[in-house]
């Protein structure tokens, strides 16, 4: 079967079998990495970021910043970089041409073949990627916090993560996504990007997107699916806990709001950059690498604050759509209309005075107040799942708290391995 991802490039897995890995890592210098880098190593190795097979070098980063492409012209919007301070480089005695072993949670994770060590102007990077140099933008802040040197090179996973439940039930590599779609008989797959528990406004965005993505396929047997691909990564206080996001999204199908044969929930390890339009382009590449044919984009996609216009992501996607391997589906916002007595799209409903707008923040406040939402706001099974997750995983809260940040169950574990002496 063909595994062609973003830019028409083949999905390549750089993952060593256990016995080969044990041999390969013997004596390598061990470098502990932080969560973001560990997650990106996993994503790079399985091909989520195809055509990238490692952390970017100077030329790629420069092309991403200036032209929103890789050096070879493939559309790419966000730098994927590994940073290190001069002190660390000195401490580990690292130079170009070395291979080192990344460790995470005190266990080996990935081999990193260092091809290049370079500097890049972080302010310039921030301005080009995020359109601002203001540190209060979380993506800009992350950029400024990078150490002063960047290291580029291929990453090979030597220790596959063992996902804990509920994550294990929703984990699929890119190739496994392609295989799952084939098994379901899906010819078109529309991706829904989320970090949220679904309210009915989201539900209907997905349903409208299904119709758009189905295009000219006949409907006697359904051949289009919705892939809800949740982003699991950095959490901030007040976010929904990860377990609630996955299980509540899945509940939409379990409880019958989506048919079994048109809906699937998986996740990608990724720290949101909140780059708005550029993050939307990144999502297009990411979901093409999962085998999706379409990607749904609503208003304010992946933005933060008022840095981006409501439909800026749509305009940028449209400007590069011929170079993408996925078709964007642009959707207007949904609201509840008491006159229509239904959740509807602003593309149809003319009762603009009577409309009642959905807001994620508003729904969070309903849950915090301990008031059970009506089924036209949040499906009762979804609400019950969220509250069960609060008890089971969230120390009593469906939202991220200090305790969740420090004591949450790990998403995955890594088996210890003998690495010999460096």
């Amino acid at each position, binding site marked *: 079967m063909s595994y062609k991802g973003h830019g028409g490039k083949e999905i390549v897995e750089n993952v060593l079998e256990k016995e080969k890995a044990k041999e390969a890592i013997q004596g390598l210098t061990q470098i502990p990495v932080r969560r973001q880098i560990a997650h990106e190593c996993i994503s790079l190795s399985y091909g989520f970021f195809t055509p990238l097979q490692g952390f970017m070098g100077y030329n790629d980063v420069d092309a991403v910043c200036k032209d929103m492409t890789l050096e070879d012209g493939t559309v790419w919007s966000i730098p994927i970089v590994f940073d290190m301070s001069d002190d660390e480089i000195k401490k580990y005695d690292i130079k170009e041409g070395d291979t080192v072993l990344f460790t995470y949670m005190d266990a080996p994770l990935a081999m990193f073949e260092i091809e290049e060590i370079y500097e890049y102007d972080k302010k310039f990077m921030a301005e080009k990627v995020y359109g601002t140099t203001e540190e209060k933008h979380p993506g800009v802040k992350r950029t400024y916090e990078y150490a002063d040197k960047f290291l580029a090179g291929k990453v090979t996973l030597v220790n596959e993560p063992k996902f804990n439940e509920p994550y294990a039930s929703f984990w699929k590599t890119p190739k496994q996504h392609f295989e799952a779609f084939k098994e379901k008989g899906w010819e078109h797959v529309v991706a829904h990007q989320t970090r949220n528990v679904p309210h*009915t406004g989201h539900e209907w965005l997905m349903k409208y997107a299904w119709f758009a993505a189905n295009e000219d396929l006949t409907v006697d047997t359904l051949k289009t699916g919705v892939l809800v691909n949740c982003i699991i990564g950095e959490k901030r*206080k*007040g976010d929904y806990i990860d377990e609630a996001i996955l299980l509540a999204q899945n509940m939409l199908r379990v409880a019958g709001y989506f048919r079994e044969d048109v809906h699937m929930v998986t996740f990608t390890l990724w720290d949101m950059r909140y780059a708005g339009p550029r993050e939307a382009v990144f999502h297009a590449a990411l979901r093409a690498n999962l085998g999706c044919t379409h990607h749904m984009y609503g208003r304010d996609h992946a933005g933060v604050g*008022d840095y981006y216009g409501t439909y800026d992501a749509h305009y940028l996607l449209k400007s590069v759509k011929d170079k993408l391997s996925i078709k964007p589906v642009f959707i207007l916002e949904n609201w*509840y209309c*008491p006159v229509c007595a239904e*959740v509807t799209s602003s593309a149809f409903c003319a009762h603009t005075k009577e409309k*009642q*707008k*959905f*807001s994620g*923040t*508003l729904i*969070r*406040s*309903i849950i*915090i*107040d*301990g*008031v*059970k*939402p*009506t089924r*036209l*706001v949040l499906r009762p099974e979804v609400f019950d799942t969220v509250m069960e997750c609060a008890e089971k995983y969230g120390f009593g809260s469906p939202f991220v708290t200090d305790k969740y940040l420090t004591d949450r169950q790990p998403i995955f574990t890594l088996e210890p391995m003998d690495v010999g002496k460096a």
Partner: protein
Amino acid sequence: MSEADIGINIWINEERYEKLQEAGLADLAHDKLAGMKVLQIKCTEEQKDKILEKFPMAKYDASTTRTIELLPREVKDKIFEIALKLKSTGPEVIDEFLKSV
């Protein structure tokens, strides 16, 4: 004091609705979203800043609803009780609340 055009939504369940009826304030609760009722307490820009300072977990939704959200339930309970006592949803409710924290 500046214009009080920022809201704090107190979502109304049956228990809260009964208390509103007892206080003769039930008419102030209005349908906000798909059958969900809310009592909106008004506050000024200055009061909003004080609340966000005292309760950093709270967020001001400037783009969609112009409301302060994500306040802890006990804070909402307290604001609700003050509204009942003063029989008001105006900024004087928040003034009294701010004196108590």
